């Protein structure tokens, strides 16, 4: 169980309220979508949960404990983050195998043979062949493969919670679905809490159990994925969904311009 009650401010000279009185709860085995456009505060919220920033007021609880009372090394065994723009966050010359051993060095309390098994398991969870994947260099991987490797890397630690920010931004449609299905499996089959952070409400609709919609630092709507997307209540949510292109219906087009 993770409980979150957050208010955060980020000052850049002037006070900018990045996250404003945001409160929500999440359970294990759920996929929660945090949806918003740029400036909504969703990434800041993720950073607060990942202890990359501290809240100006409010608290975040993990399994009943305030996250700032949990030592980082322990916290990150339970809560992992996977961010967008994977190319900027890792040394491209590393072999994939190297990436995993680095993670192991940060958290390892596991025998070498168990390590190897865990790595293989993590790769299989994201539908990658261990023998192939481990020997590749990071810069030989496609955007989609890299995003899956990063997911596997966070899984390897066997966390309870994974926060993933725009995990399919670098991927084409045909592969995107495969990654989204992996994310669904991680919560369904493996009982993890996944926080899926994105501007793309369609993807969130497919993958998430619950959706939280953020706008300018505040939560404007939350509920089950079906409730929020098929019967939105807040005007912002309504407009957001109306403006997403669909296959069954077309926008009403006028020639008035």
């Amino acid at each position, binding site marked *: 169980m993770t409980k979150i009650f957050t208010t955060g401010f980020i000052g850049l000279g002037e006070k900018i309220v990045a996250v404003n009185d945001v409160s929500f709860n999440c359970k294990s085995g759920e996929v929660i979508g945090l949806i918003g*456009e*740029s400036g909504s505060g969703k990434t800041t919220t993720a950073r607060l949960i990942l202890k990359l920033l501290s809240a100006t007021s409010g608290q975040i609880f993990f399994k009943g404990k305030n996250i700032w009372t949990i030592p980082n090394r322990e916290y990150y065994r339970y809560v992992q983050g996977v961010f967008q723009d994977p190319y900027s966050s890792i040394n491209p010359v590393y072999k994939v195998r190297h990436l995993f051993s680095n993670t192991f060095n940060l958290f390892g309390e596991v025998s070498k043979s168990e390590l190897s098994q865990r790595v293989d398991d993590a790769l299989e969870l994201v*539908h990658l062949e261990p023998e192939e994947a481990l020997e590749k260099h990071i810069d030989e991987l*496609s955007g989609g493969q890299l995003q899956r490797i990063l997911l596997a890397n966070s899984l390897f630690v066997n966390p309870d919670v994974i926060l993933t920010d725009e995990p399919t931004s670098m991927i*084409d*449609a*045909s*592969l*995107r*679905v*495969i990654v*989204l*299905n992996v994310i669904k499996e991680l919560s369904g089959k493996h009982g993890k809490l996944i926080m899926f952070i994105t*501007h*793309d*409400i*369609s*993807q969130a*609709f*497919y993958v998430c159990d619950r959706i939280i919609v953020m706008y300018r630092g505040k939560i404007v709507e939350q509920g089950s*994925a*079906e409730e929020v*997307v*098929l019967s939105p209540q807040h005007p912002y949510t309504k*407009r*957001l*969904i109306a*403006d*997403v*292109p*669909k*296959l*069954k219906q*077309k*926008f009403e*087009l*006028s*020639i*008035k*311009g």
Partner: protein
Amino acid sequence: MLIEAIDVKGYYSIPEGHVHAVDGCTLKLRHEEIVGIAGESGCGKSTFGKLLMGYDKPPLRMVSGIITIDGVNIYDIPRNERKRVWGSTIAMIPQYSMNSLNPTRKARNLIVDAMKEKFGSSVPKNEMIERAKGRFKDLGLSSTALDMYSFELSGGMKQRTVIAISTLLNPKALIVDEPTSALDVSTQRLLLELLYYIVKRKIVGSMIIISHDIASLRQICDSLCIMYAGKIVESADMEKMIEHPLHPYAKLLLDAVVTPEPEIRKRKLEGIPGAPPQLLRPPVGCRFSERCPYVMDRCKSEEPPYSEAEPDRFVACWLY
């Protein structure tokens, strides 16, 4: 027929050889038609767009095939003279063009710059500005916008400025490459509506929109071509394509489109495992055969021809 492209092949020269980026594509664009070209990264759609313009700048080379625009074979015109066709007969709004506006120039000067590049000093400045004012008005921009610096313009206003500049000479055909990447949802919608508008109001004659986003194309295109590994695998009227795609890749790609519609929650979506073939030494036979759920022996050795399966509907597949 405004544009006829027949069996177009365009390759990139690299030290290792030639990348067959566009390897035999046929497309026809009628007057007042909006055609969408969809496909995933590396399928060749942007390259095809450039070739349609007559924009074969090395290392890209037009290898074979014919492209006629308004009856003129564009590759008959020497490359250094093709400029006179660009902007007036055919124009392009390239990918990321919203980001390429010089932020330190006022909008009116961006227009003057664009015009000077085309015409030198043969068109007087005030005439250009008058035209620009008229076009801005058509696109819902007040003439005060002309005096704003481009960094002062909102995303929506930038879009309109870019469209104004590209359409100043009322091109017969406008090619738009990935118009909706990097925009928020509501600005994307506005842009699609604007593109529709400029065709219906005859500011441009016809349009080709290149995009990976099929749901966006669906909103305003009359017909859709789907490209894979340098080839068009299917083209059809938009409604028919959405309802009942014929080519296995088209079918799988459409099945993988995620939208906020109820059907999406009711089933598990299947992606397409694997990856497209590399195009440096393309494989023999159908390029989709390795990933195709309906693959037959024939597919691996013989390439299916792009042929008319139904009236006005073309597919390259041995199933038809």
